[in-house]
């Protein structure tokens, strides 16, 4: 009896440390994930809002929660970060860094911002994977490069050889361009600008002189490219080193442009936009301006970026999903440096975080570190990420179908933002397209183009009872309400109320000096 009691006590004494040892042994499992970051660019470093921050935030969030449960074993992520060598471009080094990640034990790689360095990187993985059995291939998720051919010329042409390659972010160039067209043709031109200019909007196209803009410029310069209410009157390419855009802006104005479409990745758009704002040129600026997505842009223009519109991943702290706001706050809180602009995450940061959510879900579905099963899981899964629902197309591109002004399906898509002043006088990126979301707000027209634009709800050049009727019809409404009319929300606070009426009344009776506008 005494022996039995002694045995029981011994077991009870040994159990806790034994259990703890088992648990800690479980937590010792690590999964190395490699991340290629485009250093020296806004899309890179965490403190500038880049991919590095998204990767770290995802890692902390996952590790601090339950880790990744792969077949009953908990894994913690160990990040291995290397330079993508996008700027200055060094394809050889990009290749070498990719191989270094694989040799460090990374089974999954996230990265690929610039097309050229991404090409070098994925080809290095392709060569590596060729000698590996199907179950042991390295999986690669592209984050940043939108060029269609990265997927169509690989997975699209040789599925078996490239099935380990996916693109999680952004949506491809074709869809990005369709988003631009959808916004311009679906809303901005017919609903806002055509009424101001007597039915026909003259527009110009200004692009950086790089390969990716050639097709875009060619398309937009054609008659009818933007519908029956628009005609192209100006088209130019600027050398990459251009700092004085005044001659181009002057030319665009002299040609009669009232909308200037710009397509730039270079940070020199800080000059372009500052000069546009200061010069008060008589056209709106809209397009793809990658640098304008960052908070650094705000600092570089000194706030002279109000009214610019650009395609983006999200606006400032946009509640696209509940996850998005938490992500934004944590990102800014963790990575902002004193004395520098706050670290607003740019699209590569969002994409990196989405990549990790996607990887986690796929690994837990697969149940083992078997690339065949992981690939199958990635191909079949549909999960909520920061900016909507994410799944892949049959050729492993991120699935996106919405490109107009409405977003009923909630699959990830691009949005259009406009830099607008908030109630506190600071500038924020506000989502103006899609127009059917609770956070969507009306597009602002610069006062030097049309000072009465914010209250001229009927867009007829005069502030009168007809504008009041439109406002009254929407009174009390908010996003989602059946009577909601975004245009009637003059102060853009998300509700049509007495404060909007006061603003309207304050300009009652005023007229545009000339109508339609010249």
């Amino acid at each position, binding site marked *: 009896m005494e022996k039995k009691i002694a045995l029981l006590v011994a077991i009870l004494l040994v159990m806790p440390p034994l259990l703890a040892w088992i648990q800690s042994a479980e937590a010792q499992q690590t999964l190395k994930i490699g991340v290629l970051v485009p250093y020296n660019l806004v899309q890179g470093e965490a403190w*500038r809002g880049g991919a590095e921050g998204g990767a770290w935030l995802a890692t902390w969030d996952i590790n601090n929660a339950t880790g990744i449960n792969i077949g009953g074993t908990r894994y913690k992520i160990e990040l291995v970060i290397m330079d993508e060598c996008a700027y200055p471009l060094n394809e050889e080094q990009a290749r070498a860094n990719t191989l270094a990640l694989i040799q460090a034990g990374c089974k999954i790689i996230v990265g690929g911002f610039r097309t050229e360095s991404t090409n070098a990187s994925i080809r290095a993985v392709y060569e590596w994977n060729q000698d590996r059995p199907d179950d042991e291939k390295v999986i690669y998720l592209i984050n940043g490069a939108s060029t269609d051919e990265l997927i169509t010329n690989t997975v699209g042409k040789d599925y078996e050889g490239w099935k380990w390659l996916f693109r999680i972010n952004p949506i491809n160039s074709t869809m990005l361009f369709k988003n631009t067209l959808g916004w311009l043709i679906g809303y901005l031109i017919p609903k806002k600008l055509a009424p101001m200019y007597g039915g026909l909007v003259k527009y110009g196209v200004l692009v950086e002189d790089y390969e990716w803009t050639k097709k875009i410029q060619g398309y937009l310069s054609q008659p009818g490219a933007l519908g029956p209410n628009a005609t192209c009157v100006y088209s*130019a*390419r*600027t*050398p990459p*080193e*251009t*700092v*004085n855009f*005044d*001659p*181009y802006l*002057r*030319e665009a104005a*002299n040609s009669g442009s009232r909308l200037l479409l710009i397509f730039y990745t*270079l*940070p*020199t758009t*800080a*000059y372009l936009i*500052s*000069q546009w704002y*200061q*010069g*008060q040129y008589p056209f709106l600026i809209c397009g793809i301006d990658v640098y304008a997505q960052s908070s*650094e842009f705000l*600092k*570089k*223009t*000194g706030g*002279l970026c109000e009214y610019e519109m650009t395609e983006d991943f999200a606006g400032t702290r946009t509640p696209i999903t509940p996850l998005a706001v938490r992500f934004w706050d944590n990102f800014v809180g963790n990575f902002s440096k004193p004395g520098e602009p706050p670290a607003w995450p740019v699209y590569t940061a969002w994409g990196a975080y989405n990549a990790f959510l996607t990887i986690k879900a796929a690994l837990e579905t697969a149940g083992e570190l078997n690339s065949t099963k992981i690939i199958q899981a990635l191909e079949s899964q549909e999960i909520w990420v920061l900016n909507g629902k994410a799944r892949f197309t049959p050729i492993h591109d991120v699935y996106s179908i919405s490109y107009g002004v409405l977003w009923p399906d909630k699959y990830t898509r691009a949005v259009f933002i406009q830099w607008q002043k908030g109630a506190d006088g600071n500038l924020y990126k506000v989502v103006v397209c899609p127009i059917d979301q609770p956070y969507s707000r009306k597009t602002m027209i610069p006062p030097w183009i049309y000072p009465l634009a914010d209250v001229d709800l009927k867009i007829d050049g005069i502030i009168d009872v007809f504008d009041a009727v439109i406002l009254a019809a929407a009174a009390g409404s908010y996003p989602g309400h059946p009577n909601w009319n975004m245009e009637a929300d003059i102060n853009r606070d998300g509700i049509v109320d007495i404060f909007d009426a006061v603003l309207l009344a304050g300009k009652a009776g005023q007229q545009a000096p000339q109508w339609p506008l010249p």
Partner: protein
Amino acid sequence: MVKRMLESIIIIGTIVGLIYAIIALGFTLVYGISGIVNLTHGVFIVVGAYLYGVLSDYLLKINIFPPESPYLIPIIAMFLSFIFTAAIGSIFYRLTLHQILGDEISILIASICSCLIFQKLIYITLGTSQAFAYRISPLAYGKIRIINTDVLTGQALAGTISLITFIALSIFISKTKVGRAMKALSQDLEASMLMGISTEKLYMLTTAISAGLGSLGGILYTSTVTFGVASYMWMSGLAVSFTVVVLGGLGSVKGSLLGGLILGLAEISAMTILPGAGVLQSSIPFIVIILVLIIRPKGLFGKRIEME
């Protein structure tokens, strides 16, 4: 319509020309007095603009000036930038140009190398982007109407500052002892030395003033045209300086004023009249140089340069 277009070309071209003239003034001054073709002048334009940007932001941050005097900050920043850049210019002269005075090829090589070194230094200290080293706040906001043309207030102010600087420099050279000594040096080196004029001190002072003028040109250009400074902008600054002195003649202060005006008018005319001229913008100075050299090789007011 044509009348309004011509008015616009003349008014804006004149203002832009005055800014170009001040950019080139220091370059021509150095050559006129010391015979040095100082290509580092382009860097002083960039350094001056960058210093102005940093100083303006700092003065704004420490918030010691009354809000009813908003122009105090740009004026003080401009003055300090002028002084600091002048100091950099004189140090540069002492460390490099002075050692190789008389050897024109060495001077050219040394000044080009200095430009590349400075460009890298600016990039290293500022870090983020070669294309956009620093934001420069507008000198003034809004527009004013001159005759029938809307002109940026900042540009009109810059043109005025440029004109005042030219007048001040003319008075300095003709009325002050130091100025007259500089003039004497430019006319006859040996005679000046015999008269007890210290060439070394005057060359250093000239380089300092030239650097300061370059910084002023850079400040006026970046605060009224580009609103930002890039580390490689020294190249376009140098292109403008070359064009202006070729038009006006190397060593002629009066010539650089007229040369600047001609370049400004030519540029604005091309932008206004020729379709697709925006892309030619950076080439216009070189087109003008070639045309002038063909028609009048010595420039408008300078001496003919004889080939030995």
